[in-house]
């Protein structure tokens, strides 16, 4: 009898527990968008998703980019990844490499197969035969500038390194005006980014086909020398500490002309510095003698946590973020900044009809060209999980800071940095 009572009670408890979990299914969704408009849009989409599925709750957690490395590693170490998460390509590859996220080939099929996506971003996210993540939007860095300042000096938008140097120097009147921002701040990876763009246009690479570091190469040295000269002759000295946010700030303060940014700058200039809006324009990166057209592009992606217990539901939610109506509305929140990765939207009149996209056609075209020809940092020979070591440790930035403040020869600094990075990547490879 007693055993019976215990058994029944136990069964009851298990049933209640099961019922409770079935009734309240919670999905954790991380995203990296800190601007109010994009937060609101994702929230609304989540509420809509919940409304169709009683008992489902989507917990949205905003993880700003700069907190992303800490966040995902801690969660991974503790064995609790989110069910669905945004990120960018270099995080996605690193996360897949250590087993923090799950492949999403089935979601691609669910959304209409490979043809539903724009080719290149989807391909770049295929690693070791698996679709690591879904490309959510793409962007590329283009050389932004003010038309009026160029016209003042009777100059054309620079197509070559020499023209860029001349134009930047011509515009520099310290301490009021500078020709170009060359940012070396250690808090993010702008120095690496600038170096990457210039190295690529000089036909150089950072990782070769076998994923070996080729940092100590003539092309990298050439690009580094050019950047150091540009910094000394035409950049605000304080840019030694600049990070992403400082670029637009300095530009809208009317202190500087050239800098590399994404199409995000359109919205930002229109809202925060409307007096500059009529003068804003952009081109792809200038090319040195004997160089090639090149760019740095990036993909913001959506991933599925590996340890998620509710994969089916997570997949449904992930797919809901690519529903056309929401998707277009979301991309239009930063017109020209977020380029579609879905074929249907990329070919739709609706997307291209946004007034700001129409108005800033030259910038948007430069961005599209950048996406077409460009690659994410150190992925010129295909996707690999090591790029975050190159771009997130501040090592390249430190190298530049050392060069410009201690007059260390560029060759020596590049060689030392090569050894440092090579050691780190070798250690990372050996840890497998």
């Amino acid at each position, binding site marked *: 009898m007693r055993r019976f009572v215990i058994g029944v009670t136990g069964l009851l408890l298990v049933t209640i527990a099961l019922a409770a979990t079935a009734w309240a299914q919670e999905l954790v969704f991380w995203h990296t968008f800190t601007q109010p408009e994009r937060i609101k849009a994702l929230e609304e989409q989540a509420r809509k998703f919940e409304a169709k599925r009683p008992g489902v709750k989507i917990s949205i957690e905003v993880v700003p980019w700069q907190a992303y490395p800490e966040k995902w590693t801690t969660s991974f170490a503790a064995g609790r990844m989110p069910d669905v998460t945004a990120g960018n390509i270099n995080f996605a590859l690193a996360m897949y490499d250590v087993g923090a996220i799950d492949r999403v080939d089935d979601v691609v099929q669910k959304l209409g197969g490979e043809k539903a996506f724009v080719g290149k971003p989807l391909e770049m996210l295929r690693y070791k035969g698996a679709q690591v993540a879904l490309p959510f939007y793409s962007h590329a860095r283009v050389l932004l500038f003010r038309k009026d300042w160029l016209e003042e000096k009777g100059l054309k938008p620079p197509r070559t390194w020499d023209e860029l140097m001349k134009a930047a120097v011509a515009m520099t009147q310290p301490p009021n005006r500078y020709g170009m921002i060359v940012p070396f*701040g250690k808090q993010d990876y702008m120095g690496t980014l600038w170096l990457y763009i210039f190295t690529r246009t000089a036909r150089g690479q950072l990782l070769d086909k076998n994923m070996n570091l080729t940092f100590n190469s003539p092309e990298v040295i050439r690009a580094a020398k050019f950047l150091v000269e540009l910094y000394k002759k035409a950049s605000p000295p304080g840019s030694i500490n600049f990070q992403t946010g400082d670029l637009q700030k300095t530009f809208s303060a009317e202190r500087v002309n050239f800098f590399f940014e994404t199409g995000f700058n359109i919205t930002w200039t229109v809202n925060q510095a409307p007096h500059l809006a009529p003068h804003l324009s952009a081109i792809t990166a200038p090319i040195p003698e004997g160089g090639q057209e090149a760019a740095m592009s990036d993909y913001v992606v959506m991933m599925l946590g590996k340890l998620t217990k509710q994969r089916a539901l997570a997949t449904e939610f992930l797919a809901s973020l690519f529903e056309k109506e929401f998707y277009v509305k979301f991309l239009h929140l930063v017109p020209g900044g977020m380029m579609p990765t879905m074929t249907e939207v990329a070919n739709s009149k609706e997307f291209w009809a946004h007034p700001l996209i129409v108005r800033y056609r030259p910038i948007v075209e430069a961005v599209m060209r950048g996406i077409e020809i460009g690659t994410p940092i150190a992925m010129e020979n295909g996707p690999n999980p090591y790029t975050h070591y190159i771009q997130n440790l501040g090592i390249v930035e430190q190298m530049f800071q050392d060069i410009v403040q201690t007059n260390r020869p560029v060759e020596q600094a590049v060689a030392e940095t090569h050894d440092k990075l090579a050691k780190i990547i070798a250690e990372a490879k050996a840890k497998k």
Partner: protein
Amino acid sequence: MAPPGGITPKQNGLLRRMGQYLDARLGFLFILPVLLVVAYLLIYPVVTSFYISLTDRNLLRRGYSFVGLENYRQVLTDREMWETLLNTGAWTIGSLTFQLLLGLGGALLLNRRMTLLWLWRMLIIVPWAFPPIVIAFVWRWILNDLYGVLNYLLMVARLVDVPLLFLGSRTLAMPTAIGVNTWFGFPFFLLAILAALQAIPDTDYEAARIEGASGWQLFQHVIFPRIRFTIGIILVLRTMWVVNSFDFIFLLTGGGPGTATQTLPVFAYFTGWRRYFLGRASAICVVLLGVLVLSSWFYFRLFQLSQVEEE
């Protein structure tokens, strides 16, 4: 509210006896939560961290193995580690010296009959209300070379011709960081020393004055002995805070330019969170702990704090 003790005789016997039983053990019951928290804070994380420092634990892997003192060997043979130690020393000594001098000077200035004393005191503790993240960004805003107000003022006063790179130059970054930290930390010294000064009875001053003591002698023989303990304790507390403060430097300069302002916690952060070497980062923190234990031992000797503590 009826206390569970014995003064409400109308309660029934059992409850009352229980109350008395507990009341008699109040000393133990009261210390229990503290002991639990100290165990939670001290023993568990600290032991874990020591242990991790002896392994090759990496944030990106689940398994790890015991490597003995390998992490310590790596850390102590790294040139960057020694530069970082030097920076930490400069940062700590510089910050504390200026905080103390400004705090002491300010306290002596305010320890007079002054109109609106409360107002001055109020204004001076303003920096205290600033969270580290706001400190870093407000000062970066003020010190900016393109539209920072400080450079503007210096240029208007014709002290400089071109804006200074307060946070961007190898030579200026550390002094600037120390300056900002002084701004943040001096009010704490000031308030505490002021409180100690105001506790000195007027008769002590009068006695000294009758003996014809000069200003310096007054300070040396009447004032300093009364504030020695305060200064010592605050130095100990602030040393720990300054050495350990991570967000402050990280948000202000990121340790740069180069490694000019990189202190031990920032170095540990980069090693552990950006390069994922948790074991090595733990070893750096243990070294840091050693430095702190040594320096607080030094303070205890210098200010004879343990004697006062025993009083």
